[in-house]
């Protein structure tokens, strides 16, 4: 297994290098350079030239490329043009927020999706299965940002203002305004309450996809000879499903983790915007409107690296669930 994981780790290195290169060329191919966005009437051409030189933009492409690669690998992403802070500090400060949102959504989506998928497979072709399939496909076809708005409409605005439900969820930010004045217990509750709607709207869409996959995978596994063998041993149906079918059905789902990670992050960008969640996605989107290109590039790069790391985790999980990989 160690060999397998080491090999994957080694393979990840050129991918990260390639990602950095790709991001650089995105920038190099764009019309004008970063500084030209700053053009405003009160900057003289000389001053612009000075900024260019400071940022090393007067150098030939290959020098800039090497510098870029060097800085990416050392984690030095330059200075934000709008905030005048090192980009690294900005990102380090908000990365945990994005990870909190994404990880809770991933957990929700996989736990829910797997349970529903298994349930459907066991009830194959019965009413519950068909109903869940249609509902699942409905959520699967939904843009997450729209689902988020609808959830806000019902569980935040409607629940609070119209129907006066006892429970409603906040629709903006990570904490309430009076967060600093709460007791520690209340603080935790407040944070969790703020997490509910964003992670739910991110998770629901993907849980629907995972359930579809899990159902198909389980149906495939249930047809296999070894499940028949397990039945012929006289095992109970629960044991046949839980111990023989489920571990096999999970194998393709692990691949899905690696495959869905980019989708999760894409969704996070939108969801963070809807819920004013101070995370990486919103940072990048804001930076684009402010033409703050070092932040855009760094954010893009970090997202891609997160996906690569996530894929390594998926590989490790893969080796855990499938002995054929472990003993390769």
């Amino acid at each position: 297994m160690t060999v397998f994981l080491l090999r994957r780790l080694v393979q990840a290195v050129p991918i990260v290098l390639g990602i950095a290169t790709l991001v650089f060329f995105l920038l190099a191919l764009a019309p004008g350079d970063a500084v030209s966005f700053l053009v405003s009437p009160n900057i003289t051409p000389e001053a612009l030239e000075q900024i260019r030189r400071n940022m090393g933009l007067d150098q030939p492409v290959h020098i800039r490329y090497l510098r870029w690669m060097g800085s990416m690998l050392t984690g030095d992403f330059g200075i934000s043009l709008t905030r005048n802070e090192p980009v690294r500090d900005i990102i380090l400060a908000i990365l945990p927020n994005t990870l909190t949102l994404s990880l809770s959504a991933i957990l929700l989506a996989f736990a829910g999706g797997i349970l529903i998928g298994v349930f459907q497979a066991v009830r194959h072709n019965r009413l519950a299965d068909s109903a869940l399939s249609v509902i699942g496909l409905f959520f699967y076809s939904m843009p997450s940002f729209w689902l988020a708005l609808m959830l806000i409409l019902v569980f935040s605005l409607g629940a609070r203002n119209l129907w006066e439900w006892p429970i409603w969820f906040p629709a903006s930010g990570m904490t309430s305004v009076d967060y600093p004045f709460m007791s520690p217990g209340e603080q935790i509750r407040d944070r969790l309450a703020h997490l509910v709607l964003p992670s739910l709207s991110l998770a629901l869409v993907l849980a629907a996809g995972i359930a579809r996959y899990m159902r198909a995978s389980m149906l495939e596994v249930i047809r296999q000879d070894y499940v028949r063998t397990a039945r012929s041993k006289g095992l109970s149906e629960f044991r046949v499903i839980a111990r023989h079918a489920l571990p096999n059905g999970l194998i393709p789902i692990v691949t899905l983790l690696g495959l869905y990670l980019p989708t999760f992050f894409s969704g996070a960008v939108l969801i963070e915007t809807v819920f004013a969640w101070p995370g990486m996605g919103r940072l990048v989107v804001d930076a684009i409107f402010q033409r703050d290109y070092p932040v855009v590039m760094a954010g893009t790069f970090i997202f891609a690296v997160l996906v690569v790391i996530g894929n390594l985790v998926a590989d490790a999980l893969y080796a855990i669930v499938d002995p054929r990989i472990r003993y390769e």
Partner: protein
Amino acid sequence: MPLLEVTALRTHFDTDGGTARAVDGVSFSVEEGETVGIVGESGCGKTVTALSIMRLVPEPPGRILPGASIRLRDRELLELPDRAMREVRGREVAMVFQEPMTSLNPVLTVGDQIREALVLDGRLDGRRARRAAVRLLGEVGIPDPGTRYAEYPHQLSGGMRQRIMIAIALALEPGLLIADEPTTALDVTIQAQILDLIAKLRERRRMGVLLITHDLGVVAEVADRVLVMYAGQIVESGTVREIFLSPRHPYTRGLLASLPRLSVTRKRLSPIPGYVPDAAAWPDGCRFRPRCPHAWEKCGEPPPASPSGGRPGERTVRCWLPDEPERRGAAARVATAAPAPGGKPAEAEEPPLLRVRGLRKYFPVRSQRRGNRAVVRAVDGVSFEIRRGETLGLVGESGCGKSTAARAILRLIEPTEGAISFGGDDVRSMNGDALRRLRRQAQIIFQDPFGSLNPRMTVEDMLGEILKVHGLATERNTRRRRILELLDIVGLLPGHADRYPHEFSGGQRQRIGIARALSVEPELIICDEPVSALDVSVQAQVLNLLRDLQGELGLTYLFISHDLAVIRHVSDRVAVMYLGRIVETASVTRLYRHARHPYTRSLLSAIPRTEPQGAARAERILLEGDIPSPAAPPPGCHFHPRCWHPGRDQACTAGIPPLEPAGRRGHRAACIKLRGESGA
């Protein structure tokens, strides 16, 4: 009281094409300590019968019709609630399945899978169960059971896995073992081991065994009584002697006549015409009627089914014939067909059509250890020649490199080393036009009748494309005429030209494959396991076709198979391969009568005979262990670790034994221990 008594079992499936009556009124019984064999071609309902006894038929679409009874000792299984039925499975009836590769759970260790069955009983706690599982592994002949206990199925060979399956089945000491094609996926030497194991265990535990197989040889070898199934019904039952020595039902007789025999060479087979019909459309009356050579008006009515059929000591035949003495006599005469003329090998002086010298094909494999570039020596120095009009049989177990050799000869894969000369031309240096010319002169027929035809082309498109590309029939009309002619040659109808591959049965597809090979009018055809995917009766049809074509068109065959009986039937000369090398070659009669190499001799002794008693047979030589991986073959003689020859010693590991003369008429064998002995 019989151990198992099945009465009037009907298991039907609801499909899109109607109700498939997979099992349709089957009655039989199994006694304690008795082995009952069920034989029949695929689609006859054998497996569904077994699954019905276990109540493992998936419902829906399947259902067991009311009125049936399955009694195990004194209990009626069909009336048991699900929970009680689960207690029966494993404890009283256990089952071994056909595919050892897929029947074990890939994510659990084999030990866990055995222990699971043991713990279930509640009598054993975890540690004791573990010890019992290890003991079981030893009992089914797994070497080093303590270590194997913690291994996963993918780390074991096919034979080992089937032993594990048997260990699981035996865990709770059931009174009845159902074995569904337990050896079909295994090589013949491994098959012999497994059959031997089942027989020993049955003896030791006084189990009843219900053995399901399509292989008449296996049944003849191990069964006490035989049930012959056709179209969801038992058409004949009796003791092994009765069935094999005096078969009464035309289907049983047809099956036996379809079978190539080890004792007879080059006799034309008498196959059953046609194909097994679809289970949703069994014919009315006697279901065998459309294929039966003796059918007459009376066969329009269903023949009498013996109500208590299949009891020990009872002989049943579901046929009208035995009631009609005159017709019976005529039928018996038809069954023995006259021998047909064989191929006529050219004079020995003529240069061979194909000459292969030192052919090697190595495949690189990625090794786990860094830097260690491993290769699989699939073909490792193979030399032979084939004369015009002759058939060379190339026989060996799976993984011995016979198919790779065939593809390398045709340059479908590039050989690593060696010389190939076809009609005097050097094949390896050919390219462009020369290679295209070779493709017109040498053709290949594949094993898999499903994968070898493009599913999106009609037969006419397929053949027409070839004729057009090679400029054999440029005009539309001549092309069409030629295509119909080709179809006629291989025994298909003109109407088949517009059809797609999925509309044909396996045997018909194989005929299309033959027509395709013939379309370029080749001299040599390489037949790569052309009949191994086919049922016995269809296999005989295709073998006869190939043989007739050889006579009419003067073809030369390189015939590759793992089946020694088929090879004996078609070949003039035979070469035996083991792990990439030819170990023995001789004329067909010499090889089958006076085999010299220890591997060939054990191979021949391992084949189950269809002549149950009567024919004298040599002592069976059971080989130990598995075939080694071609990525890491043993040094020197590849066979020496499994060799039983008394003279085996250190010298065998020293170097590759050369193929040396070992008898008259070109008989050669690769064994240094034969040097002193005199060839017969």
